[in-house]
């Protein structure tokens, strides 16, 4: 069991159970509504509420923005339920510049790629989409490099 302890110093149960719950959530969405939901499209689709720039007002975004907003609201509610039942309050200590700079690049890149960890990761892999598999391998690799570099440069 030494290898398991080395690879997963915090144990595996909460990772596995959390992942299963996420899988059930995406499955429930599909069985009941037929919708396939990654999270990153939420950002572009909801910009159509406040911007009349043509890109944000394409049909795929305008027709999906209401349910994507409901999906995101659900995400907030679910996290709040966790906080008031099993969870405990936690404030990240990652530096503000990392949160801001990283977030901006995440938003730009995920929308350019048309998918993120949930869109390409969960939904794309489950749909056996080769471009999504390649996207996942590429973003895992670039994220490992940048996370390691950030630490070397003195980041959190």
């Amino acid at each position: 069991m030494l290898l398991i302890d080395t690879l997963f110093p915090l144990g595996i149960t909460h990772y596995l159970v959390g992942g299963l719950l996420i899988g059930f959530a995406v499955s429930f969405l599909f069985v009941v509504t037929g919708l396939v939901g990654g999270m990153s499209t939420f950002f572009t689709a909801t910009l159509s509420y406040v911007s009349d720039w043509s890109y944000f007002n394409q049909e795929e975004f305008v027709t999906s923005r209401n349910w994507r907003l409901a999906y995101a609201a659900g995400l907030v509610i679910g996290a709040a339920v966790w906080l008031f039942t099993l969870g405990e309050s936690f404030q990240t200590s990652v530096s503000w510049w990392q949160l801001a700079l990283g977030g901006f690049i995440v938003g730009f890149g995920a929308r350019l790629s048309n998918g993120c960890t949930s869109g390409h990761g969960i939904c794309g892999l489950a749909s056996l989409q080769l471009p999504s598999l390649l996207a996942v391998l590429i973003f895992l690799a670039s994220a490992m490099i940048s996370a390691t570099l950030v630490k070397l440069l003195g980041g959190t």
Partner: protein
Amino acid sequence: MKTSSLASVLFAGALFGFGLSYSSMIKPEVVLSFLRFEDFGLLWVLGAASFVTFLTYQLIPRVMGRPLLESVFSEHTSKMNRETLGGAAIFGIGWGICGVCPGPAIAGLGAANWPLAMTLAAIFAGAYVQGRVMGGSGEGQ
């Protein structure tokens, strides 16, 4: 979309948010420890979620003609092009800097992980710039 469908979407989102929080993926420190090869737990989260979803996407359309409340099963389609792969590389760079991807940035609000609100705003800004850069003219189409 009918109200019952929207309520179902809300419930699915809530289950997603609960699972994401339970898995500790809303803590950037945990994600960064994965990306720095210190704790490989994220692979269980991604693997379990993808496997359950894989079974659903492959089996359900064969046994059900249509979803319970709507008329068609959507499909996830991704294109093999420069945007998909280049965008993924860029996304990863950002993810490695902050340890936050879009889902946890949203769920972070519910879990009162307030610093993540900055990431949420920054993701909106990045998505906005991407739409402006890629979007051609500002005239309505």
